[in-house]
């Protein structure tokens, strides 16, 4: 039986599934429910400085993108950090941590970029007994207009400066939460590392407008006829998040820096994928907001079953295993040649592969009068579009050619030697393969 116990920066939790700093972790009531449901940890919703709390809009805070049958694919929000008094949050954190010593509680923080502000709040957080802090350098809406959140996360020097203050005035682990609203995520991650961060967590939400009401001409969510960009999250952002995670994991400057993976984690499989890309644990928000806290039961049973099937006993047996396989395009093997194969037994004759290939790709699928669709090997570049648009799983597959066979498209013999763009004769900058 797989052991799901997680040790992230020395912070123990019974499983690697934490709730991200967000509405589900804003109050003691919610967090207790989360722990009762089985979540391994929470990052408490971001606290701001002492004094009158922020205020939120009183109209819709969320907008959504749906798949068919209203499956929620993406969610956007314009909610700010906690709008409850600092003292109330601190008292609640203290109580919950005392009652759940085996669960992780991390406190998310966002105060102005002034040393004194951090110096003031950190001892108060330390007094709660929480296991660590997460610096919210990611919120893309509202707070960023006031020089906080993503406004900090977009300036590596600020990240480094604030992280250093936190390491100076706080003893426990410091996690820096990164915004994806930048051009190269490696830069802020490296800055966090230079500042002494124990880990980074990513991604925070992505600038977004989910839809436009074509009657009122207002972006959604609409507040009295106006909208503002919100932060996009949910299943739709997972590919973006995984790419950013992998860049940090494989960058020599930041390789080995612990990562907490965030972005559309909905099932055990999503979690396993993030972890294979180097994340020590994952944080979840949208899935819990969509389906309730109970989804963690599926995450636990699913990850456990998969680990058993693979023979992984502990999380560190597979964390980071996919990182060496993330590479630059120029290192991909250009001698690897595949062809699409359509299983006539499985084909339902819808013709979507044909439309995709004939209209938009390589004219590599033939169609007979009685709707038989077959791949023309002499044209097929193995682009995979037919596989991607086919409604029947595993009906079309990409079959690698064997060494020694002749690729009917190029007339060349397939080689099992590895050869990439760096040595390709067409590359003006090609270097000798010595």
């Amino acid at each position: 039986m797989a052991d799901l116990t997680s040790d992230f920066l020395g912070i123990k939790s019974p499983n690697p599934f934490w709730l991200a700093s967000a509405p589900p972790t804003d109050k003691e009531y919610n967090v207790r429910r989360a722990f009762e449901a089985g979540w391994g940890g929470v990052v408490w919703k971001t606290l701001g400085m002492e004094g009158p709390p922020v205020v939120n809009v009183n109209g819709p805070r969320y907008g959504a993108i749906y798949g068919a049958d209203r499956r929620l694919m993406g969610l956007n929000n314009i909610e700010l950090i906690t709008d409850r008094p600092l003292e109330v949050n601190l008292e609640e954190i203290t109580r919950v941590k005392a009652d759940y010593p085996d669960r992780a509680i991390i406190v998310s923080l966002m105060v102005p970029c002034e040393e004194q502000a951090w110096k003031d709040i950190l001892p108060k957080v330390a007094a709660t007994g929480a296991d660590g802090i997460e610096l919210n350098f990611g919120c893309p809406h509202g707070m960023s207009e006031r020089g906080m959140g993503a406004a900090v996360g977009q300036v590596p020097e600020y990240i480094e400066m604030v992280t250093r203050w936190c390491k100076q005035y706080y003893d426990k682990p410091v996690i820096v939460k990164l915004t994806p609203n930048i051009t190269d995520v490696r830069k802020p991650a490296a800055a966090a590392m230079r500042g002494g961060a124990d880990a980074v967590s990513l991604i925070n939400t992505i600038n977004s407008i989910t839809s436009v009401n074509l009657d009122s001409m207002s972006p959604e969510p609409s507040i009295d006829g106006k909208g503002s960009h919100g932060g996009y999250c949910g299943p739709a952002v997972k590919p973006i998040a995984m790419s950013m995670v992998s860049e940090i994991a494989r960058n020599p400057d930041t390789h080995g820096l612990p990562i907490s993976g965030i972005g559309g984690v909905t099932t055990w499989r999503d979690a396993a994928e993030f972890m294979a890309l180097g994340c020590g644990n994952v944080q979840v928000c949208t899935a819990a907001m969509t389906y309730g806290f109970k989804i963690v039961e599926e995450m636990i049973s699913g990850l456990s079953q998969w680990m058993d099937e693979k023979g992984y006993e502990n999380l560190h047996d597979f964390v980071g295993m996919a990182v060496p396989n993330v590479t630059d395009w120029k290192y991909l093997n250009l001698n690897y040649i595949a062809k699409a194969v359509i299983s006539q037994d499985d084909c339902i004759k819808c013709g979507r592969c044909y439309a995709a290939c004939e209209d938009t790709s390589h004219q590599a699928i033939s169609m007979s009068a009685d709707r038989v669709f077959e791949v023309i090997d002499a044209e097929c570049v193995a682009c995979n579009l037919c596989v991607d648009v086919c409604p029947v799983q595993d009906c079309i597959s990409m079959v690698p050619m064997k060494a020694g066979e002749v690729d009917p498209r190029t007339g060349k013999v397939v080689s099992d030697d590895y050869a990439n763009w760096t040595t390709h004769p067409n590359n003006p900058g090609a270097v000798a393969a010595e």
Partner: protein
Amino acid sequence: MPDTTTPGLAAARLGRDELKANFADLHEPLDPHEAAVAADRCYFCYDAPCITACPTSIDIPLFIRQIATGTSEAAAKTIFDQNILGGMCARVCPTETLCEEACVREAAEGKPVEIGRLQRHATDTLMAKQAHPYVRAASTGKKIAVVGAGPAGLAAAHRLAMLGSDVTIYDARSKAGGLNEFGIASYKSTNDFAAREVDWLLGIGGITIQTGKTLGSDLSLDELSTDYDAVFLAVGLGGVNALSVDGEDNSGVSDAVDFIGDLRQASELASLPVGRDVVVIGGGMTAVDAAVQSKLLGARNVTIAYRRGRDRMSASPYEQELAASKGVQLLFNVQPAAIHDGEIELAYTDGSHETLRLPADQVFKAIGQTLVTDAGLALDGRKIAVDPNGRTSRKGVWAGGDCASGGDDLTVTAVAEGRDAAMDIHATLMGGK
């Protein structure tokens, strides 16, 4: 060669291939893609009504989500945790009046999530792939007798064995399984599923089955109470209610349950005789199972005669439709007045005093079953009286399933009662109460 027009009782009215096709799975199993599409329709409702509607309280949204995320084995475990006979229940449960009736998509669209078929997909996946998934707790040193190897007895025995006790199951028949093995239409349990499920369930260890032992003749409750730390009675209802009309003893008149049992045990469907004109008396699932199977064996005319109106019929609308779709005629508000040679006389119960006669070379009785022995226990109506924990009037003796009071006479109810009685037996024995 006989055919559907041959008068009287005759075997092999249909060809072997046609019989085989007729008795194939009523519902084909879902393939993985169909299962994924069906699972995708579940909304993962909060405090889901389907769970409440399930007598064994299976966490349906969770197991469906587990199927959706590619872990059907974990889904099966979620099912078996609550209902160790989840494989059979997936086949025979009247889901249309239980979980699927409660599904919010039934209310919204008239098209519920296919919970029963998804449950079968999950349980079949695990049973095909893996040996028994549970291990026994440390031995309690307790010995428990279970009388009756049907769903209630098997569920109780499994739970007790899992909790560390040793169990002996006694059953009057030659084979374990109870009504799962002898009392359910063949097209609901193909490929000898009931027997395979029993074998799989026994994989937990610690359970011995002794067949051919009948309570009252081979076994006495006094002896069992002396020899074992606790006794669980799950003997079912072995007797069949009588019609009490002239001609009931005619050769063409028999019990529907025996017909269903013979059919299940038959190695060759073409060897089973069936009438050309068959009349089934009753209005429950047994009546439908007997009628539909008569039709599938090649009877020309099959009629279900029920003494009340359609709305009172205990066979669900789904079962009624199934019967009608197979060509069975449903007659309401009629009861038998007399059985003549080759004919049945039915009297209308609507106060008209009219009668009608139908050709009938075979008549099946399916008007309910009765307890064979009360074993000296207090009764509640015609069943053994039990409290909510399954305790009978005698200390150390529990009862559940069809023989005990309360609950519908369904496989899934029997499983719940067996499981819950086992928990109470365990708590009682270990707590020394």
